């Protein structure tokens, strides 16, 4: 992994992202705005499953309202995320927070797909709570990448 990070770091794309000062801050801004859309769209879907939001509307209507926004914002979030990784591969791959975040992200997506297909199943309510917790975890870990040693101490893959 470290070798791959070193190779990526040396590529022309990575060098450009590193040397053009405004790219990383701007891409981070877009990344955070997209997280706002993804997180709150997921929250709306989860709260509807729990009957805490738009209970007067059928689930399908709520899903149709928020799922498309969620998926599109997720796509932009993924693209901007890749740009940030290419720009600083060592920082991302070297952080325990990054890997845990990726795992939580994949689980959150699987949970979302499951909720969309079976919103009335017995597992739907715990899954909805889980989805909210997972996204909070993803957001926390995203910020924690900058503080890997402080947060994970001996479990940090840095140092």
């Amino acid at each position, binding site marked *: 992994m470290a070798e791959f990070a070193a190779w990526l770091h040396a590529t022309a794309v990575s060098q450009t992202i590193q040397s053009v000062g405004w790219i990383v*801050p701007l891409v981070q801004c877009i990344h*955070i*705005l997209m997280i*706002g859309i993804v997180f*709150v769209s997921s929250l*709306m879907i989860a709260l509807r499953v729990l009957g805490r939001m738009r209970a007067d509307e059928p689930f399908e209507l709520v899903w149709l309202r928020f799922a498309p926004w969620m998926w599109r914002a997720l796509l932009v979030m993924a693209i901007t995320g890749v740009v940030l990784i290419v720009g600083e591969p060592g920082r991302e791959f070297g952080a325990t927070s990054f890997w845990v975040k990726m795992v939580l992200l994949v689980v959150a997506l699987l949970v979302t797909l499951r909720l969309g297909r079976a919103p009335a199943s017995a597992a739907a309510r715990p899954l909805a709570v889980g989805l909210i917790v997972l996204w909070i975890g993803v*957001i926390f870990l*995203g910020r*924690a990448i900058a503080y890997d040693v*402080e947060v994970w101490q001996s479990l940090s893959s840095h140092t």
Partner: protein
Amino acid sequence: MEFAGLVNDIQASAIGEWMRSSLKAMPVVEATHVLAATMVFGTVLIVDLRLLGIPNATRAFTRISDELLRLTWWAFGLAVVTGSLMFAANANTYVINTAFRLKMLALLAAGINMAIFQGATLRGVGGWDVGVAPPRAARLAGLLSILLWVTVIMLARWIGFTKGYNFVVPDDPNIKFDF
């Protein structure tokens, strides 16, 4: 000068000292601040888009705003608390940071925009609550709100990239340089 003294007192406070020296405090507080900010933006966006007729006007505006703005205010409160803690850790640097100053201005503008909307435009909501396009003033308020909150978040991220290496900060005039 009094303002600078106050800012310095905030930085010198026990809370500021704790935020600076605790290994866990800053990551947790910053992450919570990001969480709160994304929640404010996401919830406000839904209400603002509804004012612009996106995706449609079938659900009553007051209903959408009532159910979402509760979440917005909770998240905003959390953002203010965590933001204040971050400010206390390094107040002297933040107050001279251009991005930080502009962010506070943008927050103020977003507040004024909201106050005008709530105080004036919303009075006639009965006529456009459901099924019809909101009046121009309401659409304008929605559009501005989106632009201002995007600006707030962008400026917030900009602070992180501009708060270091500031050589223009005035030095203490009493420093002794000759020995």
